[in-house]
């Protein structure tokens, strides 16, 4: 990877409810690029974003973001660092009691002392960037799923962050909304020079816009590289995921006892 790393994870181990989610994950996320983190459902992709954002602490290992070791940061320093981060949640996570305009204005009102007319201009610019300037007065309950995510995207870039993290931005979107989101993520990255981390299991869309990608499974990174390198990756598991094959090294069936014993065919326990 030629670019300098903006985020560096080193030997990150994280367990929850007795289950090891990450078992020594090491990863560099380059500055100013789009990095896709992919993997089957339940492998901890969203958890990885929460570790980077400091919402969770790893059992061991270091997570460096913009030169700061996130798990070691004190509360105030962590909240200051988060002002450089934006995060697009899977659900959008808009504040339901605020209009689209007020949602986007929220971080500006909290973190800046800008006059009201300037806040208005910035909010309208951000809403214009996601094509929703005309929807400023709508409440979240009046927005479609795709519009909700676009307003949330406008809110997450309101403070012009250095880093933006997208949690499953394409999940449940129709093809048009998905196309709009793909274009927005690409345009925002190139126009604002953001470091973007995209968590998704939508392979074609993710590989179409990312500069670098990695695939997580069973607590490890099983493959990483540019989209072209990943497509040629020798690992069967990587190829099974990229090509969406139902069975392979990642089994289709959840581990279960012997079928004969479950149906009482072998005289085993019922």
């Amino acid at each position, binding site marked *: 990877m030629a670019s300098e790393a903006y985020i560096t994870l080193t030997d990150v181990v994280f367990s929850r409810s007795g289950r090891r989610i990450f078992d020594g994950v090491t990863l560099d996320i380059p500055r100013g690029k789009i990095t896709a983190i992919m993997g089957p459902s339940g492998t901890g992709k969203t958890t990885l974003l929460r570790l980077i954002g400091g919402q969770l602490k790893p059992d061991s290992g270091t997570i460096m973001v913009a030169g700061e070791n996130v798990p070691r940061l004190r509360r105030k320093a962590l909240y200051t660092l*988060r002002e450089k981060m934006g*995060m697009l949640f899977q*659900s959008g*996570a808009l*504040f339901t009691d605020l209009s689209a305009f007020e949602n986007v204005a929220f971080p500006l009102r*909290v*973190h800046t002392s800008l006059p009201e007319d300037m806040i208005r201009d910035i909010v309208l610019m951000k809403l214009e960037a996601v094509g929703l300037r005309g929807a400023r007065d709508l409440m979240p309950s009046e927005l479609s799923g795709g519009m909700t995510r676009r307003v949330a995207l406008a809110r997450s870039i309101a403070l012009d962050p250095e880093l933006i993290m997208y949690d499953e931005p394409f999940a449940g979107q129709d093809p048009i909304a998905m196309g709009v989101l793909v274009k927005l993520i690409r345009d925002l990255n190139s126009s604002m020079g953001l470091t973007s981390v995209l968590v998704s299991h939508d392979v074609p869309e993710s590989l179409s816009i990312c500069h670098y990608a990695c695939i997580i499974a069973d607590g490890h990174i099983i493959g990483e590289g540019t989209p072209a390198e990943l497509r040629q990756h020798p690992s069967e598991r990587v190829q099974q995921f990229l090509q969406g094959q139902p069975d392979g090294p990642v089994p289709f069936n959840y581990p279960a006892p012997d079928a004969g014993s479950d149906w009482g065919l072998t005289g085993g326990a019922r």
Partner: protein
Amino acid sequence: MMDRIAALGRLGFNVVATVGRAGYFLGGALAGVPKPAVGFPLLVRQLYSVGVLSLAIVVVSGLFIGMVLGLQGYTILSDYGSEAAVGQMIALTLVRELGPVVTALLFAGRAGSALTAEIGLMKATEQLSSMEMMGVDPLRRVIAPRLWAGFIAMPILAVIFSVVGIWGGMLVSVDWLGVFEGAFWGNMQSSVSFVDDVLNGVVKTVVFGFVCTWIAVFQGYDCVPTSAGISSATTKTVVYSSLAVLGLDFVLTAVMFGDF
């Protein structure tokens, strides 16, 4: 047998862990004092939501409870020819006990459950997480104004409850049953002590308000972010608040009015 002991131990650990989390949560919510320009509008909004919107149920309940007290009191006291004392009976009952306790129970049912459900839903829809990721502490932005609002609103609601209750009792005993109005108010004035009765009642409401709101916001914040989790947390808020109010009422009454 060993399994039961182990289960009891686990339960003990869980209770201690929950109390610890609740204490840590309370410290986090009360630690940061937001700037007045930011915090005051948030507080006023929550005072409206928690206090003003609870007024209807408090006023109606206070009125009927006062009327029932007037009716019962008159019936009992008239057997002894002491119906003139009905005013002091109503006032002491309301100011010392029913005002604080019933208001707290109503508060837990109306405002407490609403607080839990609202915060639980904010958690389930990732609004609290998104706030954290924007560099805004939800404990200070969401929890603290609600906690202070409950703490402030509950004593005021209890005072309104008692005042309306006394007025309801007067309606029945004076206007309907014919107790002499001068005796009604005069006996009340001579027997109700501002410090021993009214202030002690207010102290109770402050304690109940604090406990009920703390339970409500903690249950919402700590709930499992699913529909079943929010439902369970809302139920726990009402049950735990009610039990806490009744238990604390006994302790506070023993301390304030017990003649040991």
